[in-house]
């Protein structure tokens, strides 16, 4: 609960995340995969590669390339969505690609491509952050060399208050939405967007709140991987 006991219309406190569950390795045919349930968001991320680059002219001799596709299922929204990639999906694919790229050690895989496919089964605001969290677990599950996991969470402003983890209603009725993705152990910001207006003081508060949210999500990502690979023997010597 927040200090001033402010309760949002969805019943959450200002600094409270939605209910999150993450599971790693759910798709057999992919090299790595994860499913995340982030409130009402349901998202699957699958990773293939590193593999041969097609078309060849995209190949880089000194490092890997990342191909990322963020796609919403026709049934993921309340009215049917056209299954072809929309302008918004193409933009979010690019944003996610650039958010995960700093975490991957691209130089270890020259002349190859790493493909990240993200399917939104059900969406409810904040799906790009949830998608980054799922993609990060899927990348680690695929055994790709990474500097750190990537974790993402949004903060925003609704009803004049700074809030954590903005959902669909708050996004539409609120004053600001600020998705943030970080590398928690290295302390690097890899994605920062801000839709709306915040004063300097509000911005500082939102940034701190989003960073704290990311740290909570990091623990969940960590648990998902630990559960799959070590049966949740957390970081203990063997």
């Amino acid at each position: 609960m927040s200090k001033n006991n402010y309760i949002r219309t969805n019943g959450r406190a200002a600094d409270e995340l939605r209910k999150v569950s993450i599971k790693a390795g759910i798709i057999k045919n992919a090299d790595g995969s994860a499913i995340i349930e982030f409130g009402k968001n349901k998202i699957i991320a699958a990773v293939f590669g590193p593999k041969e680059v097609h078309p060849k002219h995209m190949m880089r001799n000194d490092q890997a390339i990342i191909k990322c596709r963020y796609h919403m299922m026709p049934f993921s929204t309340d009215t049917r969505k056209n299954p072809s990639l929309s302008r918004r999906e193409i933009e979010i694919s690019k944003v996610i690609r650039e958010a995960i790229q700093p975490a991957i050690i691209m130089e270890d895989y020259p002349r190859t491509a790493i493909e990240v496919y993200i399917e939104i089964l059900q969406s409810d605001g904040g799906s790009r952050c949830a998608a980054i969290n799922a993609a990060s677990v899927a990348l680690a599950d695929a055994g790709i060399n990474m500097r750190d996991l990537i974790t993402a969470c949004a903060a925003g402003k609704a009803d004049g208050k700074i809030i954590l983890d903005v959902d669909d209603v708050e996004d539409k009725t609120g004053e600001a939405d600020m998705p943030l993705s970080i590398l928690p152990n290295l302390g690097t910001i890899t994605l920062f967007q801000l839709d709306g207006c915040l004063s300097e003081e509000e911005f500082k508060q939102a940034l701190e709140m989003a960073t704290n949210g990311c740290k909570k999500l990091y623990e969940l990502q960590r648990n998902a991987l630990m559960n799959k690979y070590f049966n949740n023997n957390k970081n203990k010597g063997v």
Partner: protein
Amino acid sequence: MSTIERKYVIPGDTIIEGDYRPLINAIKRNNRVISTRIGMAEIVRKDVRVIPLNGTYYPRLDDTVIGIVADSNAFVWEVDINSVFFGILQGSAVLGRTFSASRDSLASHFKTGDCLIAKIASFDRTRDPLLSIYGPGLGKVSNGEICKISMAQVPRLIGKKGSMIKLIEENTKCKLNIGQNGVIFINGAKESIVKIKKVINIIEKQAYLPDLNDKVNDLLK
């Protein structure tokens, strides 16, 4: 005697702080040694390495690998070695003399789909790994089946001083060739091959069991 410290890690975990050297699957940042993979971190004296639990095979010099010929052009065969990169087998490496595209034909030696046991003769990040089939036990193999196992479980399949592989071979009268890339070539009777595939599946899923040898022994009998 030096002590070996081990712990489970995921990417981004700090394995140890201080004057240590990252060897395999680890990087150093601000005096911290960080893991880059999911696996078991091992600290031996000042060296830190992470033995990965997943991922594809990354070629290393002198590794024995089993691959399938995927393609050929006028000078080389491309061999699928279950890795990020294709293995390259040069025509001259098979003929033992200078290869001439007008005189010699690659198709008369290996065809697409042939199974080869080879060694990684040279590899660095800038080029695909070069293969060699010179050496005892290397070359084309036929009359058998191919099976795959996660690269991380290859040592478990071989067992301590080859105990597991010996157990399987003695009980099934089959010959197993295990590549370090996680590809296994099984030569023997059809019923035995089916049995071995089951055993490999169990080893892959239950590699952590301490009495795995007994379990496999029961299954084979």
